[in-house]
């Protein structure tokens, strides 16, 4: 990690309530440039809701989300993407009736308005970038295949690759290894360690074994609040965390 790390994302007093239920209730979270942070917590703790707020899927009812110097609250989803935030959903969301190549090409950050997309041309630069990104997630030889034919794990990697090609400063992943085999988990851990060298990564994860493989620092959420935060070993031995989450 870089010395004198710069602050990339600062979430302060963030809150959202759905029909009176406070899914996120005054969360503070600070993320440095180049940091990989894992968010854990029991079901309903507000983990996914937190990512939804940052990427603009749901609108916050209070607080602030500062990304670099930009306030993300109030921006539309695509503006937030343009600011440099990428979001991966829990279930693989890829375009099944397009090829792997086309999936990656569509997320290539050029020609994303109507006129631009009409005149978008597939240059060799685009092709090289797609090949390189696909190689990174181990799909380099599957470019011509329909994305719908990939295995579950490969679909997850494809979606990660689709985010990588946009080169976001902040990558948010929601349970990336859910449903993966042990070998795939291992590969995903290596992949995440590699990609977090150039950017900040925020991951929601349940599998503690996997968390230990990738994280140095974790944040524990419970009932919409931060329960504990810090080094993985310390958090693991925190009594409140054991009682609320790890114990059962």
């Amino acid at each position, binding site marked *: 990690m870089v010395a004198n790390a710069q602050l990339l994302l600062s979430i302060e007093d963030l809150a959202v309530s759905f029909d009176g239920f406070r899914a996120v209730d005054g969360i503070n979270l600070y993320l440095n440039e180049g940091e990989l942070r894992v968010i854990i917590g029991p079901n309903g703790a507000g983990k996914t809701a937190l990512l939804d707020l940052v990427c603009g899927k749901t609108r916050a009812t209070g607080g602030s989300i500062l990304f670099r110097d930009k306030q993300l609250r109030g921006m539309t989803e695509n503006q937030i993407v343009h600011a440099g935030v990428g979001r991966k959903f829990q279930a693989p969301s890829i375009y099944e009736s397009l090829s792997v190549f086309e999936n990656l090409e569509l997320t290539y950050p050029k020609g994303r308005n109507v006129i631009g997309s009409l005149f978008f041309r597939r240059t060799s630069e685009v092709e090289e970038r797609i090949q390189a990104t696909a190689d990174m997630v181990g799909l380099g030889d599957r470019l*011509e295949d329909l994305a719908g034919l990939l295995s579950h794990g490969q679909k997850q990697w494809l979606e990660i690759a689709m985010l990588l090609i946009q080169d976001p400063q902040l990558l948010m992943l929601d349970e990336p290894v859910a449903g993966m085999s042990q070998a795939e988990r291992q590969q995903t851990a290596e992949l995440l360690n590699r990609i977090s060298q150039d950017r900040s990564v925020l991951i929601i994860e349940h599998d503690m074994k996997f968390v230990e493989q990738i994280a140095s620092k974790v944040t524990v959420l419970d009932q919409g609040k931060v329960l504990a935060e810090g080094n993985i070993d310390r958090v693991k031995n925190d009594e409140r965390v054991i009682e609320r989450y790890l114990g059962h």
Partner: protein
Amino acid sequence: MTTILRLLGGRLEWLICLGVFAALLLVVLPLAFNGYFLNLLGRYLALAFVAIGLVMCWGYGGMLSLGQGVFFGLGGYAMAMFLKLEASTPEATARQSTPGIPDFMDWNQLTALPWWWEPFNSFSFTLAALLLIPAAVAYVFGYALFKRRVSGVYFAIVTLSLAAAMSILIVGQQGYTGGANGITDFQTLLGWDITTDSARYVIYYICVFLLLGCILLGQWILSSRAGRVLIAVRDEENRVRFSGYSVEDFKIFVFMVAAVFSAIGGAMYALQASFISPSQVGIGLSVELVVLCAVGGRFSLLGAAFGALLIKTAEMYLSDLFPQLWTILFGLILLVVVLAFPKGLAGLYELTRDYALAHFGSSQSDAAVEEHADKRSLHGREEGFLVRAKRILGGIR
């Protein structure tokens, strides 16, 4: 054979299909039919404009519009208003209590031409209006709906009510619109008698060239990145949104394109039928067009255009022979197509082509690829064909 096709990709095949379709419209039909029947075929081709708009908007964009008749009607009425004004010279309408205004206005005790009819005295204004007004309506409507994330069934219902509202409005404002009778009784376009046989041929050819132009333009849009964005929106809208696209802009754009295509069709209809009425605006026509598009193939511009022509021609013959049975037969055709060929006539063509390729150009490896693809296909047969077609023809890059 397979290798050649793979090298050339899918584009050559599409161009061949387009060439066959163009030859049918430009050479075969004019030779086979007299002016009267050609004029009828031209009216069916006018509906094909709407069908190709629906391919873009519904097949690709996933927005089932049950109100395309509105845009067809806007184009048709704009054209009819110009033609009607030309026919309503003071000399021709000397017997009216107010000469120089369209006859239906006179019957409804109007004594002057409404101000918004005035500009339609100009042909160039009319041409501009019949493209720009539908585009503007589609923009406003699309903006209001898509920005509020109205989609799926709700979008279909709202467009359906738009069609209903539009025809009710036209019927109700008889003095300004001709009411339920529509606008009729016009013969000349810029002094040229459009009811003669030679004029019918010329207008038919204009209609065909415009249709081919729209198909080419549509295919260009669909094969650009924008086309893939539309497919992606249909598959996984959130992913597109969170890949930095303003999904609404793309939806509005394609809805506008579909509207303009429909309006051109409407204008060509008014010109060839010498008539436009609220039934060309309302729910009936709007829904019929969706059916025509589904039968032809909602993922194929050529399929939908051909389907519209074929079904309407079949209707012309069969409804004469079996007036009572035709609607039932029409329903049966729809049923068979939806159940057996979800991709319509275009899908049927793809099946035949794949079958032919498998028998004439198949090698061991192709067969293995197919088997592999079938085994891992996602949603059974449909996807299996898609995969096979892509594998065999290559043509992704």
